[in-house]
Structure formats: C-alpha cells, structure tokens
C-alpha cells in the first residue's frame, strides 16, 4: 500500500463512510467545490453531490444546530469547522443543546465535528488553539485527538458510527507531515483506547496528537542516556483510557504528562487527580507536566516556539523525574 498522509487518511475515512452509509453527509464552510480550507473534503462533492456535501454560510451556531437537527432524523452529519478556534462561536449549541440532548430527553445526537486544531504552523492567536478541555468538561461529548494516519482513519470511522456527538480534533501540524501505509480493508480504532507507543520501565510519558510524536523523540533521546520511557498516546480524551495510564504508572512509578494545550486546567491536572485516586502508593516521584504557557498562542515564530513545549523541555523534565 502507498503510504498516505494524515490528511488523506481522514479523507479516505469520509469517502468510505459516505460510500457505506447514505445517512452520512458532510456540512461546513467551503467544503464542496473548494474541498475545505485544508482540502480534506476534496472530491467528496463530485462523488456524493450537492445534497450530501453542503456548503453553509459563516454561521457556526447554525451549522452545529442544523447537524443536530439532522441527526434527530437518523442522519449522521459530519461537520467541518474551518478551524477549531471557531468552535467558540457555537459553544452554546454544542455544550447546551447537543451535549445534553441524550441525558435530558433521550435523544442521541450521532454527529461528528471535525476541527483542524493545534499550533506550530504560525497561525496566531485565532488559528492555533487547543480548546479540548472546554469540552472535556462537558458531559455528553466524546473527544478524539489522533496522532497517526492509521488512527485518524480508524477513529474517524468509529466516530461516525458512534451514536454520540464526537469532537474530532485534527492537528494541522500533522496533516501533511507524516505518512503511513494503511490496510486495504475496512477497520475502526475503537474510541476510548489509549496506545502504548513505546515500552519502557523508568517512567511513563503520556501525551496525544502532535506532542505524542515529540514525546517519542524525547524517549529516543532519553534512551541514549539509559532512561527507558514508556510513551502512551491517549488517542481519545473522552472516554479517557484511565486503565492504560494507571497500569503503566504501576509499572514505572513515575509519570510525565505532555500537552500542547495551555497549562492551567489542561488534561495533565485531570490525569494527576486520577493518579492520586488510583495509584497514589505507586508514585515514586512528583507527577510532572510539560505544557504550553498560560497565554494565547503568539504569532511570531520565536514566540510560538517559546509557547509550545519543545523536545528539550520534555527531555529535561523526564531526566529530572527519572532521578527520583
């Protein structure tokens, strides 16, 4: 099989799911003739037509609302938000209408919200965000944040087939930078299962999305110094695979959490709380985190570089932690 990019993997998942199920439709801004701001939906219109690939006005609230209404009639809409930063414009529709629907009145909302996200591409304060924690704090939504083409495709298929609203974060930095050969046959990656990307015994590094790659690089560096890090890629933030994290910590007794999201209220804090509850007696060192700064994402390259966790930051933190 030809290796395909992260972006192409998502595109394949959309094509194959739309082929498989006529209830799957795509809706968003500039997704039809133009094929989406990043060309993830390129070619969908030609194959599936105007009724299934719907361009909308610049109205994020209306897009999410309409997708929700469609799901009530049994459709499975896949929404494209042009950038995840614009999710703030439909915050109410997502958190109050969509997320609470099944709990309040038993009306499931099977929809996927695709959202190009993340920094490292000099997008500035409004095109680089990682707002996943707003939604992790919203019961009723599922959150997927893949790091490889294989996972992106398999998780997208699982998300489309899931009967719940799924926020599908697509890290822009990964779109065209990584390639992987994918299986020819249909496959899904189930939601809620983390992946141990590298085995190790000295400490655990937990991360996801682009930072999973940086964490793996850090682990390779650390190995040269004789520190064996186990690297866990969360893949899905909700449901969170607590078991894999806890089991790893029980083995390595040390944990470093790395995320590109800002520090305060980031997922590292939540994982620390979970470990306090479930693995307190297994910890031999402080729960450590390497995160972005508590600032908006700055535009200029040196500023953004300072903002984002760097390879050296992870290596340094891991080295310090390993000494305990």
């Amino acid at each position, binding site marked *: *099989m030809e290796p395909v990019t992260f972006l192409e993997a998502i*595109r*394949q998942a959309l*094509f194959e799911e739309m*082929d498989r199920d006529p*209830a799957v*439709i795509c809706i968003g801004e500039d997704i*039809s*003739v133009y*094929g989406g701001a990043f060309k993830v939906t*390129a*070619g*969908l*219109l*030609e*194959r599936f*037509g*105007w*009724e*299934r690939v*719907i361009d*909308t*006005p610049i*109205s*994020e*609230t*209306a*897009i*999410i*609302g*309409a997708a*929700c*209404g*469609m*799901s*009530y*009639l*049994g*459709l499975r*809409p896949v929404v494209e938000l042009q950038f995840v930063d614009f999710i703030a414009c439909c915050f*109410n*529709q997502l958190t*109050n*209408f969509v997320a*609470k629907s*099944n*709990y*309040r*009145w*038993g*009306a*499931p909302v*099977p929809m996927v919200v695709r959202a190009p996200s993340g920094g490292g591409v000099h997008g500035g304060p409004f095109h680089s965000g990682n707002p996943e924690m707003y939604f992790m704090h919203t*019961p*009723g939504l*599922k959150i997927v944040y893949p790091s490889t083409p294989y996972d992106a495709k398999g998780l997208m298929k699982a998300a489309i087939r899931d*009967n*719940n609203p799924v926020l599908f974060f697509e890290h822009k930095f990964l779109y065209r930078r990584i390639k992987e050969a994918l299986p*020819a*046959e249909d496959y899904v990656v189930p939601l809620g299962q983390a992946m141990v990307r590298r085995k190790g015994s000295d400490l655990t590094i937990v991360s996801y999305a682009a930072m999973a790659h940086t964490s793996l690089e850090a682990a390779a560096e650390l190995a040269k110094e004789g520190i064996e890090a186990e690297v866990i890629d969360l893949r899905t933030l909700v449901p969170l695979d607590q078991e894999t994290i806890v089991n790893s910590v029980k083995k390595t007794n040390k944990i470093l959490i790395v995320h590109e999201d800002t520090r305060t209220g980031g997922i590292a804090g939540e994982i620390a709380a979970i470990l306090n509850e479930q693995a307190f007696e297994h910890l031999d060192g402080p729960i450590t985190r390497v995160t972005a700064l508590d600032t908006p994402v700055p535009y200029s390259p040196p500023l953004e570089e300072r903002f984002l966790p760097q390879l050296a930051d992870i290596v340094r933190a891991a080295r310090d932690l390993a000494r305990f």
Partner: protein
Amino acid sequence: MFPKNTLRPAWPPPMHNTAKNNGRAKVTASPALTREQHLDLYFFMALNRAVEEAMVRLFRQNKIVGGLYSSLGQEAVSVGTAYALEKRDWMAPMIRNIGSLLVKGVPPRDIFTQHMARYTSPTKGKDGTSHFGDLKNLHIVSPISMLGDLIPVMTGVAMAGRYLGQKIVAMTWIGDGGSSTGAFHEGLNLAAVQRAPLVLVLENNQWAYSTPVSRQVPLRDLADRARAYGVHSAIVDGNDVAAVYQTAKAAVDRCRAGQGPVLIEAKTMRMRGHAQHDPAEYVPQGMFEYWKARDPIERCEKFLTANKLWDAKTKSEIHARIDGLIKADLEFAENSPLPPPELAEQGVYCEGPLCLEPRWERPIAEVTPPGCSVQAAWKVSDPGSIEAGQAMPGAPLAKFTRMEKTPAAPRSPAKGSTKKIAARSKGRR
C-alpha cells in the same frame, strides 16, 4: 433624562400593536374552517388554559419543584399554529407553547409530571417544564432555555426531512425577545439559503421578561426581520385562533410545496409575568385591560355562538371532557413517584442502538454514487448569479479512487438519473 433622540424607542410602549400585514403579500386564505375544526381549536385552547390553571394550583401547593411559565392570553398562537401541522411534521415548542404540545398529541399528564419532576415524566425527572420531546412518534424536539437555538436545529430537521424524501415541515416558535439572539439570525439565514421547509412563528407577546418590544427592536413589525433574509412573512392577530390557523396552514402548505421558509409574526400579549414569581408590575396601566378584552378564548366563544356553531350543550360537553382529562391526569401525576437518585448517573451517553433510524422515502440510488455524482463546479447562469452545478453527461468523475477494492464509480449513470438530479437542483434554487 435621556437626551432627545429620535432613535430612542417610544416610551411608554404602545398599548397595542395592530396586526396589519403592512405591505406584505396577502396570505392566501385557506378555505373556511369546518365546524369540527372550529370546535377543535376551541377545545385545545380551553384545554391549554385548564392545564395551566391546574398547574397554578399545583404551584401554590408547592408541588411544582421549579418555575412555572404562563401562556395565559397566548393560547390561540400555540394552538392555531400547531393545528396546521400533520402527524408526520416536526415541531419544537418554546416554554409557553403548552397548547402546541397538546395539539401534537402530548397528554396533559406529561406536562404535569414534567413540572412536578416525577419519574413518570417523559424525561424521568431529568428536565422540567416543556423541556421534553419525542423523536419516534410525535416528532417533537425538546426546547432548551437558550433562545433561538431551536431555529437552526429545526432547519436541520427540515433539511434532513427533505434529504430523506419525507415531505415534512418543521415548525418552531420564538418570542420578540428571542428574535435578537445570534442563533435566530444564523438559523433563519441558513433556512432561507437552503430553502428549508421551516415555519418560524414569532410570537410577539410585547414583553421579554420586563423589557418591552420597543426597547428590544426599533421596528413596528418584527416580521420585517424576515425580509432581510429573503424569507416570506406574514403578520396575524395572535388572539384570533382561526386567523392564526389559516395563516399557519398557508405557511405549512407553502413550505411543503418547496417554496422555502415562512416567518409568521403573531401579535399577542403575555397576560402574566415572566414566570409565577413575577407580578409584572412593570406593565403599564391599561395594557392588561386592553388585551383582556381581546382574550382569545372568549373571542372564540363569541364567534362560535354568533355563527351558531355550538350551543350550551356542546360547550358543557367540551368542558366536561376537559375536566375529566385534567382530573385523571392530575391524579396520575400526583401519585407518581420521584425518580430514584441513581438515575442521575445514567444516560449521559447513548449506549444502546439509535432510537431513530433514517426513514427513506425516496430511492437511495438518488443519493449514492453514481446517481448523486456531479461535476464540482459552480454554475454561472449569468454574471452575478451563481448556483450549484449539476451532473453533466460526460463530466469527469471524482478523481478519488479509494483502494483497488472499490474502483471509481462507473461513468454511466442510468438514463434519467442525471436528468433527475438536474431537475432536483433546479427545483431547489
């Protein structure tokens, strides 16, 4: 003192805002109502009021755990509009549209149990008031407290119905206050650009909590908001149930015929405060009297009598029926248990199968390749007018070839299918 400012809204607010169509195209009058229809409308309005009177008693007995929102004086809007819907149609009420729920087939017991937070309520106590729905049978979408959100949602319902070939109409309501939310404008614009079969009833009850319309919108007619979106609109006297029904029926018919959304402004008056706790002392003297004299139920009674559509016996039969319904359902609600505490932990996610599978009422081949395949290009009919392109014979198909397993769709759509798509996309624009 405010500086003299012509833009400042009139204060005190006008006592009444007449329901003239003010330059709008006349709503095509539906045929006159039958006696049964008149009596039906009366029945539902009287039932609406009786249900709410019963709830006021429950509220005073402390049996309603949350707030209680009255639609006193607005029954004709709720009832007359929903009465224009068919069983297959979808609706999403607002908090005061108890009458719409009753017309669509919700029994009073569901409204009582909802307000009393009982386990037997449609939401099993998870939400209150009119915040419930029924996807399977009654086709009701539950409202939420954030106003305007239902408009894009019901636009989506309307679009999905059209996609599935169901020929349904979606109806929802908004108040004068809610018509200033972003969701209202985004939703109405999306409905307009999609020509979605959506009837939006703008219930102008003069007050958004304590703020009069004149302080919310510098327009005499809120229906004017529809014009900005190219949406067909009508204004109706919201206290004349037959007129409301006829206007709504014309709107529903127009939607079903594929002519795009309709906004109906129904002028009425909220005869109570925002909720039970609010004595509405901010309403200027005389305003309640003005509207009391135009009470929709009394008006309907006078109409029925004047036109000899009923007699004292019919009236007492209707009221006996209502009393019986209320009594039985109240008893049911009062005897219902509160939910078990552990229910609080359940149902955040849908674990089981979907409760609604898509119901296809058109050939699926129309929306699956090659039947749905088109050339990815905007069609320019004349400069400045661009529309969705359409399938063209011989046009190259999608470049995307998935895997060897699934070859690109063959480029020979069955004769007729191209035409059908062309006709469809023509019909939609």
